[in-house]
C-alpha cells in the first residue's frame, strides 16, 4: 500500500473528518454565543435606553425629520447624481476619444477627484469657490452647491463605470451599426450606450447608495434650518437635547432608503446574469 492510499482512506484512530468538521463548527457557534452573552451582561441597559431610545425625543422629531430632513437628503443626493451622471458620461466619452487631449483631460480629472476626500471638495465648492470668484452664484443656492460638489465627486467614479460598460459591449455591435450606415456618434447614442447602461445599472445604483451617505457632508457648508438634511438635523437635535436618540432615528431614515436600494441592486445583478444571451 502506498502513502497516498493511507491518506485517502479514512483513518481508524482518532476523530473522523466528519467529527472534526462538526467540532470546529460547534466551537465557532460557542464563541459567538459567548460574545453576545458578554455584551448583554456588561451593557447598562437602562442607560443605553435612556441615551438612544427616548420615545418623547423621537416623537418630537416628527414630522420634520421626514418632510424636511429626509426630503433634503433625497433632493441633494438625486441632484448630485444627475450632475455626476451627465458629467461622468462626458468624461467617459472623452476618455474613449481618439483625440489625445480629451483623453488626458479626462484621465487627470478622474485621478484628481477619485483621489481627494469628498469633504475637501465640499469645502472647495462651498467655501473656496465663492471666495475666489465672488461673481459666481450657484443656481438654487445651497442646493446648487451640493449638486455641484456631489456631482464632481461622483462623476469621477461614474466615468470609470460608464467607460467599462461601453467597453463591455461586444465589438460586433459597433461594426453592425457602422455597416448599416450609422455615423460613429449616432451608433454610440442609439446602439452602444443603451446596452452599456443595462450592464452598469447595478454599479450605478451602488454609486447612488454611496452618494446618499456623502450627502451628509452638507453638514460642513452651513445651511439654513429649511435646508438641513438627515445628519445635520439629527446632530443639531442631539446637541440641544443632549441625547443620542435623534442620531438613531436619522440613521434609521438612511437605512430606509439604502437597504431597499441594495436589495434592488442584488435583484438586478441576478437578472442580468440570466439575461446574458
Amino acid at each position, binding site marked *: 500500500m502506498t502513502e497516498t492510499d493511507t491518506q485517502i482512506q479514512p483513518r481508524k484512530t482518532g476523530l473522523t473528518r466528519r467529527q472534526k468538521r462538526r467540532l470546529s463548527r460547534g466551537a465557532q457557534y460557542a464563541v459567538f454565543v459567548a460574545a453576545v452573552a458578554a455584551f448583554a451582561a456588561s451593557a447598562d441597559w437602562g442607560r443605553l435606553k435612556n441615551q438612544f431610545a427616548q420615545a418623547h425625543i423621537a416623537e418630537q422629531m416628527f414630522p420634520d425629520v421626514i418632510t424636511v430632513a429626509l426630503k433634503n437628503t433625497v433632493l441633494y443626493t438625486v441632484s448630485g447624481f444627475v450632475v455626476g451622471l451627465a458629467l461622468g458620461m462626458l468624461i467617459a466619452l472623452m476618455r474613449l476619444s481618439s483625440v489625445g487631449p480629451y483623453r488626458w483631460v479626462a484621465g487627470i480629472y478622474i485621478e484628481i477627484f477619485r483621489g481627494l476626500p469628498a469633504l475637501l471638495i465640499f469645502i472647495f465648492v462651498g467655501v473656496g469657490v465663492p471666495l475666489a470668484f465672488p461673481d459666481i452664484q450657484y443656481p438654487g443656492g445651497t442646493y446648487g452647491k451640493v449638486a455641484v460638489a456631489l456631482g464632481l465627486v461622483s462623476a469621477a467614479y461614474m466615468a470609470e463605470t460608464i467607460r467599462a460598460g461601453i467597453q463591455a459591449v461586444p465589438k460586433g455591435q459597433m461594426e453592425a451599426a457602422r455597416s*448599416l450606415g450609422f455615423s460613429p456618434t449616432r451608433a454610440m447614442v442609439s446602439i452602444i450606450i443603451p*446596452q452599456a447602461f443595462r450592464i452598469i445599472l447595478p454599479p450605478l445604483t451602488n454609486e447612488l447608495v454611496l452618494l446618499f451617505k456623502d450627502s451628509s457632508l452638507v453638514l460642513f457648508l452651513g445651511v439654513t434650518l429649511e435646508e438641513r438634511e438627515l445628519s445635520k438635523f439629527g446632530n443639531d437635535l442631539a446637541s440641544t437635547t443632549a441625547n443620542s436618540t435623534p442620531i438613531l432615528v436619522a440613521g434609521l431614515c438612511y437605512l430606509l432608503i439604502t437597504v431597499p436600494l441594495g436589495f434592488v441592486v442584488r435583484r438586478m445583478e441576478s437578472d442580468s446574469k440570466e439575461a446574458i444571451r
Partner: protein
Amino acid sequence: MSRPEIRVQDLHKSFGDNHVLRGIDLEIGQGEVVCVIGPSGSGKSTLLRCVNLLEEPTKGQVFVGGTEITDPDVDIDAVRRRIGMVFQQFNLFPHLNVTENLTLPQRRVLRRDKAEAAKIAAENLARVGLSEKADAYPSSLSGGQQQRVAIARALAMGPEVMLFDEPTSALDPELVGDVLAVMRRLATEGMTMMVVTHEMTFAREVADRVVFMDGGVIVEEGSPDQVIGSPRHERTRHFLSRLLDPAMAEVEEETSDQVGKSES
C-alpha cells in the same frame, strides 16, 4: 458583364507585421454572386471587410457602384447604406426586438418615418419567413432565426450589394439550410452578392463564380464547376479534399509560409 458593382485593385492589408492581403484584384458585376473560399487565415474575411471599409486597406483601391470608397474624402456612411453586411455572429441589437432592429436603422440613418419603416420591416421579415417573430427579442431566437433577421435588417436598408461573412459558420448544422435558402432566393432575385463561406454545396449551386484564396492572394477563380469540380491548382485541390472529407486528412507539419491565423 455590365459595369462592375464591386472593383478591388491591388489591395494590400497588414496588421502590424502580418501581411494578410498581398495584392488582390477582383471585379464583381451587377447581379453576380461570388463565393470566396479558402483556408482560415487566408484573408478572405479581411477582403470582405475591406469592401465596406470595416478594415482600412493598407494600399490599393476599392470601388463600390462606381464610387471609390478608399478615397479619404468619401462619405463612408453614405456608401455603407448601399452595402448590406451579414456577420458570422449575427450582431443583432439585443436591447431591441426584431421589428425595432429593422426599423431603428431605417429611421435614424435613412430618416424614414415610423409608418414607412414599419411597413418595410414587415415586408423584409416576410421575405426571410419570420413575420411571426416580429415582437420577439433576439435572445429568444435560434441562431438560424437570428441570422435571417440580420439579413432582413440589412435588406430593409435597400442595399445594392450584400456581403456575407461566413453567415452559417456559427450555426448548428440543422439550422444552416434555412439561412442558405434565404440567400439562394436573394441570388435568384438578382442581388449582387459576395459570400465568404465554407458551404461548398451552396457555392456550387448558387455562385456564378468561385474565388479560391490562400496566403493573402487569389490562387484561382472561375465557374463553380471548374474551381470546385476540377481545380487547376494543387493548393485548391488540397483545401477541397480536406474540406469535403475531413476525416481522411493527414496530420501535417505547419509550414513557415502560412499566413497567421488572425482571421476574425
